[in-house]
């Protein structure tokens, strides 16, 4: 630290009023939470787009494939309709689609100068990103709730009731976080809106189809089953699906520590939490590097 006290007057004159600052960590989180929610409401296009595609999937898949796929589902899970089977997968799809917008928001902030502007404020930088992510998670929770409501209207049965709904929303949020982190990492690396959207979207369909989302793994080719074993979507969908039908339907991890539904939920949640921590760590590293004042 080489900061020679060359300025003799430093500290000599304390008469000037000091700028008062009311910043606190929680306050800074709240300020950013509000801003990003306001932006989401202002830009209903983003809200609608990340909902429309999953809704189209929900309606088309149940109507078009319902009869055929229903048979495959019934072989493994007697008495479960395809609507009920599909709704948890669509909930995860919503989480995936909505999480992409997190990185897009960051790129927009970098492009329109707000990112740098925020860096010059005395706000705590961790709080800035916590607030932004909290707003996105909040939006994802609302969107998953909408999908669950729509699913019930289409004939899905949530046998676990309100507890199940809360549980599925929670699984959806845990699932979304690793993709939120990934889209932010893409945003910082590419610093380009189109690249971020394309990069994240390219991943979306392979991840969804090469998993247990739309059909039981047993009905899929061997290589798909192998891929699905390493696919986070499988863990999210199986955990959410276990919650909606109150049975252990985890297909890729065989655990029998708890007996019943929790055997399907806990392993999935554990995998997602681990994934969140790893990708979250990478995103935090990239974010702090992007916002540091070190010369690049």
């Amino acid at each position, binding site marked *: 630290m080489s900061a020679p006290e060359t300025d003799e007057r*430093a*500290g000599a004159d304390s008469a000037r009023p000091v700028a008062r600052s009311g910043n606190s960590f929680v*306050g800074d989180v709240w300020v950013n939470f509000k801003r990003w929610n*306001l932006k989401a409401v202002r830009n209903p296009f983003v809200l609608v787009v990340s909902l429309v595609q999953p809704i189209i999937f929900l309606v088309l898949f149940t109507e078009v494939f319902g009869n055929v796929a229903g048979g495959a589902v019934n072989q493994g899970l007697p008495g479960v309709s395809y609507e009920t089977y599909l709704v948890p997968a669509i909930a995860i799809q919503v989480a995936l689609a909505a999480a992409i917008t997190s990185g897009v928001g960051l790129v927009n902030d970098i492009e*329109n100068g707000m990112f*740098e502007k925020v860096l010059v*404020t005395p706000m705590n930088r*961790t709080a800035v990103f916590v607030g932004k992510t909290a707003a996105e998670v909040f939006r994802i929770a609302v969107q998953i709730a909408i999908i669950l409501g729509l699913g019930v209207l289409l004939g899905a049965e949530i046998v676990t009731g309100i507890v199940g709904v809360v549980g599925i929303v929670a699984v959806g949020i845990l699932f979304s976080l690793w993709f939120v982190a990934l889209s932010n990492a893409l945003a910082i690396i590419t610093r380009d809106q189109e690249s971020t959207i394309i990069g994240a979207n390219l991943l979306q369909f392979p991840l969804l189809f090469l998993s247990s989302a739309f059909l039981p793994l047993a009905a899929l080719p061997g290589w798909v089953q192998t891929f699905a074993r390493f696919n986070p979507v499988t863990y999210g969908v199986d955990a959410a699906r276990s919650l909606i039908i109150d049975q252990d339907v985890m297909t890729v991890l065989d655990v029998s520590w708890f007996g019943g539904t929790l055997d399907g939920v806990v392993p999935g949640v554990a995998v997602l939490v681990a994934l969140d921590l790893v990708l979250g760590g990478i995103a935090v590293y990239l974010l702090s590097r992007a916002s540091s004042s070190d*010369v690049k």
Partner: protein
Amino acid sequence: MSPPGSADTAGSSEDDGVSEAETAAAGGSATAIAVDGLELVYSDGTAAVRGIEMGVPEGEFFGFLGPNGAGKTTTIKVFATLLSPTSGAVRVNGFDVRSAPREIRKSIGYMAQETSIDPELTAEENIRFACEAHGVPREERSERVTELLDLVDLADVAGKRAEEFSGGMKKRLDAATALVHRPPLVFLDEPTTGLDPKARNRLWDYFRRINDLGTTIFLTTQYLEEADQLCDRLAVILDGEIVAEGSPAELKREVGGEVLEVEVEGGSGARQRAATIAREFDAFADASVTETDEGISVTAEAARQHGTDLLVTLRDADLTVTGFNIRAPTLDDVFLAITGDELDTDEMEAGR
């Protein structure tokens, strides 16, 4: 000489909470910006700033003048804690940029070169967010928002989204958001680049008003005219080094007055004769005369008063004047006078 509660003890973490008492102790200083041997080298090896020494007293309207790529933005980013200096000491409002960046952020306003506003929010919401981000007390926010909307003449469109605004309106909104916490020191990085003259004049008025209220302003610009209009004192930066410092009048004196350009018919022989006449012209005792492609260029204090006399003299010597122009010195002329070199803009663009 060690100030009480020196910012250096606060540690290097940006999130360190420094108590109000420490803030008060370290924050009082009559020098808004004190720079000692500032150097900044980018990781690709580009030396953007090479050893700057300068001081800006409180309340001054200070101009930082230089062409594209001279190092203006890099310097201002160091002052605003966006870039850490490679070497040298920089104190802003009495705080060290390396050890107390958060204290500096509390006490400065910063307007980036690119307009930085949230296009999806309204003018009012943009200012309100800035209030919240800078920790303006809740009970003062509404009043501050109204006051600033008035100051920048956006009260009529307070509820409109910023994306619908013209370039000048956006700039004014951006300026307002930099002032929400009544910072004693404001950085303006080329605030009028790309604005039409009307919008520019309006912005100048706001800056003068803010400065009259006691705010220190550090402004970068490429335009000598802008610096001349606004600034008490200037530093000229070229290639990362300060090449001249002084009041606008002093700098213009270095140029040696105004510039009279005369176009003469008849090739180089005629141009040489015209140049000789101009050099011997009594009214332009201190003139510097150069031959140009079309004629001659005369720089003299009295160029405006006695320019027509020279034209008459040229006509009497049977030279045909096809055009003439008297203009104030530009940044180019200042650089020409200071460095003896024409400004090579292309070379400048390559640097940062």
